[in-house]
């Protein structure tokens, strides 16, 4: 896979996706974590939209809140300490923040599914793959108040799911325990579990970070294939721009709990407008120009217990002015489909 061809294919996919109906709309979502030291404003007014079948990447440093955002979609952040301050997350027309836990369970796995970062810790070490999958399948039926499939039926469906993600000998796998599988196999198992309920939205939180480079490419290709074949919408979280460029039509850059820039992937890679996004791209080494040295962004991410006033990026920004220190920049459109939250963009 060369980055150039992927950039183009992602672009055309983006064009195809645009007219579809909105699946997910996050509006001014604020989430705080309460602790003994005070309240951390982990997500500070996040707004995002995702159409059915669309692919969106979220890129940002560790601690910028991207995983917390991903978990918010399934309401998996433990509360307390997590506390929703304001905003809404509309999924298929309903605000999931207002749903009861029982109603929320009908969405988990069925409408929204999640693939996690480290397949070692996200699979139960003491249970065989079979019961882990059938429990999820039967649980989804129970939440939807449908007749539960028998254990044998659920097992047959689990085996078919394992086969559909390219795993050989699914029957033997069902009887295996996680420690008997390789990292790539475990991640495929987790992806198969996520597909069990035939969801409309797949949230993938750093799905390849814990894997070997060769396996990374296979897993990304698998996810891309599933998205294409099943018409899934994909929200892919990563700190790796390369991973997102390879699988997502659009990308949002996150910094300290806010979206600072959002655009078609190719557009953002060619011409980032936000100083942070520019810094992020400048930090990527360019193999075609060995003399070009990657530059890091000076400073470090702010303490979210006491975030800087105004633009959260201003202490590290070369362009910062008095206005940036006082007024928080809102996401505004600078070109069709290209939004930036910066006073200077």
């Amino acid at each position, binding site marked *: 896979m060369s980055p150039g061809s992927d950039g183009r294919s992602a672009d055309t996919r983006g064009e195809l996706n645009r007219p579809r109906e909105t699946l997910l709309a996050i509006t001014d979502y604020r989430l705080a974590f309460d602790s003994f030291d005070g309240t951390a404003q982990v997500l500070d007014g996040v707004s995002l939209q995702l159409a059915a079948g669309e692919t969106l990447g979220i890129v940002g440093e560790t601690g910028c809140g991207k995983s917390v955002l991903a978990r918010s979609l399934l309401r998996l952040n433990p509360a307390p300490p997590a506390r929703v301050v304001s905003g809404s997350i509309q999924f298929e027309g309903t605000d999931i923040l207002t749903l009861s836990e029982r109603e929320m369970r009908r969405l988990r*796995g069925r409408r929204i599914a999640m693939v*996690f970062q480290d397949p070692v810790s*996200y699979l139960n070490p*003491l249970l065989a793959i079979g019961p882990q999958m059938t429990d999820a399948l039967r649980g989804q039926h129970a939440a939807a108040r449908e007749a539960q499939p028998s254990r044998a039926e659920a097992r047959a469906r689990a085996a078919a799911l394992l086969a559909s993600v390219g795993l050989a000998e699914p029957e033997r796998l069902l009887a295996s325990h996680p*420690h008997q599988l390789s990292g790539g196999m475990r991640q495929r198992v987790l992806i198969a579990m996520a597909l069990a309920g035939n969801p409309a939205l797949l949230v993938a939180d750093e799905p390849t970070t814990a894997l070997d480079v060769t396996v990374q490419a296979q897993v990304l290709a698998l996810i891309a294939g599933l998205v294409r074949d099943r018409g899934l919408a994909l929200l892919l979280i990563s700190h790796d721009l390369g991973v997102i460029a390879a699988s997502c039509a659009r990308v949002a850059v996150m910094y300290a709990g806010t979206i600072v820039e959002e655009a078609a992937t190719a557009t953002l890679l060619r011409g980032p407008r936000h100083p942070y996004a520019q810094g992020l791209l400048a930090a990527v080494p360019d193999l075609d120009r060995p003399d070009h040295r990657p530059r890091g962004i000076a400073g470090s991410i702010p303490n979210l217990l006491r975030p800087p006033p105004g633009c959260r990026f201003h202490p590290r920004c070369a362009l910062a002015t008095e206005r940036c220190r006082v007024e928080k920049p809102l996401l505004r459109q600078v070109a069709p489909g290209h939004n930036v939250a910066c006073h200077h963009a």
Partner: protein
Amino acid sequence: MNLTFLFDRVMVAYVARRLALAGVMLFGLVCLTFVIANVAPSDPAALAAGPDAGHSQIEQARREYGLDKPLPEQFLRYVGDLAQGEFGRSVATGRSVGRDLARYFPATLELCLVAMSIGLLVGIPLGMLSALFKDRWLDHLTRIFAVSGIALPPFWFGLLLQLGFATWLGWLPTSGRLGVATEPPEPITGMLLLDSLLRGDPALFAESAGYIILPAVVLSLPCLASILRVNRSEMVECLRADYITAARAHGTVPWRLVAVHALKNAMLPTLAIIGLRWGWMMSSTVLVETVFDWPGTGLYAVSSAIAGDFKPVMGVTLIVGLNFMLANLVVDLLYGALDPRLRDA
């Protein structure tokens, strides 16, 4: 729970090795009890000859019991007898210690089994509930209960229960295994609850249950308390684990998350404390059996020790030690049944 691994060739070798090790430990225990019995400041020959015996009668008793032989020879004879299942003779009563143990041990075993059942059936669910309602009133309540369970001296608590349930309320008998008027059945296992069931005698079952409940509750309390606390803290950890988040995201129903996915993981450390508590329980029946006049090995050991009669004390010590070793072995095997990673190691 999968127990087929027990018949594995590797497993058989492992069990054989553990049993051999237990044999070595048992020999050490035999040596230790022998030394302690012989350094204790009491003369078994004088005891055997009776309080009014003259010097020559004492010497005659000494020869009769072989106590005039050099210590190494006495030791060899003792070990030789033990190897044939012969624990020697009580010098006070002249009865075979082995036969005495066969009569008293089932009573103690029955008491411990009932007490451990109470500990497990109450301790594990309460531990789970405390973890689910961590830092809420239920958790505080079980914490107070557990701390007092460990801190209350059993003889004091036993007397309190006797006062309350036997003297004031008159619901339960004060002490003993059966009423004086009741003819104990011809023993099958020697455990009254089990024998009455085997003989199909519900009235006898109810009567012996009434007698066993108070001593079993007192004996179970420290065990219950530590099972509760360990299970609670392990459950708190496991409920936070990534694999629980993932199983929730995939749609597994809450009760299975708690009672299967998390509990299985929490049971590993809980099992260790159960094994230890079982060992301690056997040796701590002394106080409870004394308070409740329960005719078990604890009472037998105490009355023999007071009389300076050491063969029974040595016999009881061996039984208690053997029980401890067996408990450890069973716990190790259960670990294997619970944790597939250990089976493959």
